[in-house]
């Protein structure tokens, strides 16, 4: 029987390996990408992050303890050479009880209590604040409506909130189960057809936070993203007022021509533009489309070039999505882009 030395599986090497991993993780995890749960920008995500760091510390300690115990077990000297069938070592049994019963209980009891405490603190604020946002999930975009305090507006794929105040959000679904996730601000919550779930968002500072669908909802689940824009209070009020107005009337001939293209090419069957005959509700409301960051639920930045590509062939960019390809003459497309660009 060839006895290999224990140097092949030494705990010092293992510990060094994981230190390197942790360092790498630290470096790579530094990315501030607008959607990081490790860089919380609001109280919801902050409370969760506090819990996370605590659990990471405890888990690391337990892991090192287990690895160290394993190392000691493998290098322990002084044993009989015959296989021992019968006598259970009382010392060893005590270690099993200590490590397997006492240790988990000691760690898990406070952890459970802190978990329940954090869970309680993550409950949505009581409705009473005037603003109510309803997000309805559809394959594969986000229908956003604001109501209350005399406000009524509808937009898509973008939610604006005032800095420093919590905003309740009602989550509904028209079709399948989706999930609403803004990692920098809050944990996720599902949109389940047939029920209403309530979450809330609050940002500590102004900025744009990325959100995504986090429950597989079909072909283009990947391209069902959204943005949360946190604005200082005055800017938020301004935005709210502006969004409620009907669409900017077409001012010049190009814009008017573009509007005509919009109305005659079938766009109005799915899209609504308040203040015009377009009343479609199957697709996103475009009344203030030009003020939004992205096209097609976070798929493309909202620039003229991307918009042109999208309108020319939505199926090439997001295959299977519900916007059909409608062939347009170049001049029609040009004026349409001017028109859509005017919808601030």
């Amino acid at each position, binding site marked *: 029987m060839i006895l290999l030395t224990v140097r092949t*599986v030494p705990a010092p090497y293992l510990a060094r390996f994981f230190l390197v991993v942790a360092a790498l993780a630290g470096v*790579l995890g530094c990315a501030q990408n607008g959607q990081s749960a490790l860089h919380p920008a609001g109280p919801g995500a902050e409370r969760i992050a506090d819990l996370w760091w605590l659990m990471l510390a405890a888990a690391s300690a337990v892991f090192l303890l287990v690895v160290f115990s394993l190392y000691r077990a493998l290098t322990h000297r002084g044993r009989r050479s015959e*296989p021992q*069938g019968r006598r259970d070592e009382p010392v060893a049994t005590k270690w099993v009880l200590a490590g*397997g019963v006492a240790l988990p209980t000691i760690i898990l009891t406070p952890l459970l209590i802190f*978990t329940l405490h954090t869970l309680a603190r993550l409950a949505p604020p009581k409705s009473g604040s005037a603003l109510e946002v309803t997000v309805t999930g559809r394959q594969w975009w986000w229908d956003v409506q604001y109501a209350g305090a005399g406000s009524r507006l509808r937009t898509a794929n973008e939610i604006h909130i005032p800095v420093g105040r919590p905003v309740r959000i009602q*989550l509904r679904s028209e079709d399948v189960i989706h999930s609403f996730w803004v990692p920098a601000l809050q944990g*996720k919550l599902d949109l*389940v057809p047939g029920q209403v779930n309530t979450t809330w968002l609050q940002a500590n500072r102004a900025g744009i936070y990325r959100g995504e669908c986090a429950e597989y909802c*079909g072909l283009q689940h990947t391209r069902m993203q959204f943005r949360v824009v946190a604005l200082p209070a005055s800017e938020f009020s301004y935005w709210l007022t502006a969004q409620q107005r009907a669409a900017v009337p077409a001012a010049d001939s190009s814009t008017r021509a573009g509007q005509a293209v919009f109305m005659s090419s079938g766009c109005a069957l799915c899209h609504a533009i308040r203040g015009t005959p377009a009343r479609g509700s199957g697709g996103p409301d475009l009344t203030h489309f030009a003020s939004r960051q992205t096209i097609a639920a976070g798929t493309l930045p909202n620039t003229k070039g991307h918009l042109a590509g999208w309108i020319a062939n939505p199926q090439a960019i997001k295959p299977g999505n519900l916007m059909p390809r409608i062939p347009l003459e170049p001049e029609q497309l040009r004026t349409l882009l001017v028109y859509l660009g005017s919808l601030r």
Partner: protein
Amino acid sequence: MSAHTVPPPPVPPDTLEAFEKTWSSAPGFLGMLREVNNIPIAQRYMVTGFAFFLLGGLLGLLMRIQLGSPENTFLDAETYNQIFTMHGTTMMFLFVIPFIEALANYMLPLLLGTRDLPFPRMTALSYWTYLFGGIFLYSSFLFGAAPDGGWFAYVPLTNVEYSPGINMDFWDIGLSVAEIAALGAAAEMIVAIIRMRAPGMTLNRMPLFVWAMLVTGVMIIFAFTPLIVGTAMLELDRKELTAFFKPEAGGKPLLWQHIFWVFGHPEVYIMFIPAAGIVSHVVQTFSRRAIVSYTLMVLSIVATGFISFGLWVHHMFTAGLSAVALGFFTAASMAIAIPNGVQVFGWIATLWAGRPVWRTPLLFVLGFLVLFTIGGLTGIMVGSVPFDWQAHDSYFLVAHFHYVLIGGVVFPLFAGLYYWLPKVTGRLLNERLGRWNFWLMFVFFNVAFFPMHLSGLLGMPRRVYTYPAGLGLETLNLISTIGAFGFAIGIALFVVNVVWSRRNGELAGSNPWGSDSLEWSEASPPPSAQFVRIPVVRSRHPLWEHQDLLPHDPQLLGQMEDLNARPAHWRGALVVSTVDATPLAIAHMPGSTIAPFTMAVAFLAIFVGALVDRAEPLAAGGALAAVALFLWFRPQASETLALQELGGRKEDPARLQLAVGGPIANGWWGMLVLISILATALITTIASYFYISDGPSGASQLPLSITQPALGTILSLLALVAVEWALRGVRKHQSIATRLGLAAAWIVSAGALGLSIQAFSGAGLEPERSAYASAVLGMLGYQWLVLIILLVTVAIGLLWALGDPEDRRGHSVVHNIRLMAAFTGVSAVVVFVVVYVSPRL
């Protein structure tokens, strides 16, 4: 009583020859189809299972290529969605559990000291069904219609409105595969372990892998059955016959999640517990000492089994359930750390108390300990609701479950293979290749999956076919892809090792590792009878503590002589008492027969018919199933011989009798398993009924007429009375009573069935448009199924009673019918109360 070391009298050579012939496989291709012995079947099963592992792994590599760089176009969205669904479905349904079942099928008789599993035809049926079902599922790729709804297929996405193609029908019907194979395996394992051990192997002397498989078998019954109910409900919805899950009809999408996860969570422990059993064996053998505190290890296995049924809601933490409910399940998710911790420290303590033998199996166990600890710790993290709200459905979760499934299950399986394959093939695997295999797998597994913890927390959701550049995800994904390929090379090395060792491996001999349990007392590879002479054990570690496996007690000596290369002309194995393992009787084991293969073909025809909605394959399948049933239950010549040989022994306590007629027979215990399955299905259906109808009061808008159903229920109870009368006829040898009783039971049950069906159709309910009506149909349909099973069993019993009323096999059938009739009566009352009485309360 002095210990006898007198060896047993030698077996006459012609007896030995006849014994070996009795246990040998039938020759040729037809012989291969007719095989029922566990050894050849388990070998095929393992190869098939491993093949699915490689296929599933290939799908995983394709996914990693696509995700290796942002906005990649290697796979389009539809293809990617099919691939990730099939990757998960393959691994969870076509690889891990079937492979574990296969390993258990092979090793259990050897570990227990018996000659075969209790239901050899069921073993064959499980395998053929699994093979055909796996091929059925993969054939979907040929039609470009592979399932694409994710391996857990959430509704409404996978319901007919949003998945109109046959993709999810392939999934739903194909899952019947896994379900039949798993339940069959569960019945085998449970009955083998509680009834067919070596004498002296009391419960507290059973090897830990045996305990693990006992717990696993019980868990399979309570976990897979809800899945059967759920997938049936989904398929009925998809065929637009019902609306269980359709919100517009009052259905509840979350009901699917509850049903699926009541299965899904225990399922992962169904995978882990056998792996833990393997680890115990390897740690014990390769530290040259018994596991420290056997009692605590057994209790951990059992406790884990129990607690795993109380965690399922942690898969639904983001679905919008009430906070207190979330609290219950977060507590239970943390509580399971205690038995798991006991096991981990138990293994470490054993290594400490012993002296490590540095071979490949031990390396895989050490790798397991490290990786499973990481996976278990991240499991505690995601078990905490607030953190789960960030981690759920992100790559953090993908990392977690791969650590527990690959680290916690696949690594022990590899340890088990390096440990036990020499017993199967007779040759050791190459150590050097084994070490390379291990290190490649261990290092590259971490390279592939550790970064995913981070990419998840950086906001990468799961099940996405690509991700934007500039979010810090590119490097992490590229590292994961590289790791995946390295891991694949490690797996490939294993395949090379197995192939190489078939010819060139060092000969193993019977006990290459110097281990302690019974399988190492037999040659490698073992004979198909496994034990020519049934061994007797006197301790937990027979080969370490008392090499001779002979009976010392004179009475036992006499009894065991009947099992020393005997019975010679028919396949027989020993039945013992559950707790104390005292010999009770000899059970007849069926020999080669084409019935299981025929039945599996019938299932395949039925699957195809259900998939394409055509009557011809369904009818053909039904007819073939009837043929298979006939072949299965008709009198077997070898059993007739057994009855003649052992028939007259009932009154002689010194000689073992034949295990037939009532609770002494394995079939009676198998019937108990079936009834447990049916009872679990009933509970699932009732829970679904109340969930959909918002509690009893929600259904009051449709008061259903009560007279016919009440009458039907009374008829079901009368059927039980008739069966009791028939059983009395059996005991008192009054064949008229037996025949009349069974005939009456059949007629009355048929009446109950007819009345119930008529009551439903007369009520004017429209299940396709109303979830409540669907729930009623679900409850009643369940009872119809139970009645049909009863009618089939009573018919079989009636045929025996009319043919040969004194045949003890017929008596066995009547005992089993009585169990079924009792259950039918109870379930009739329960269904009646739920459907017809509770709305009126």
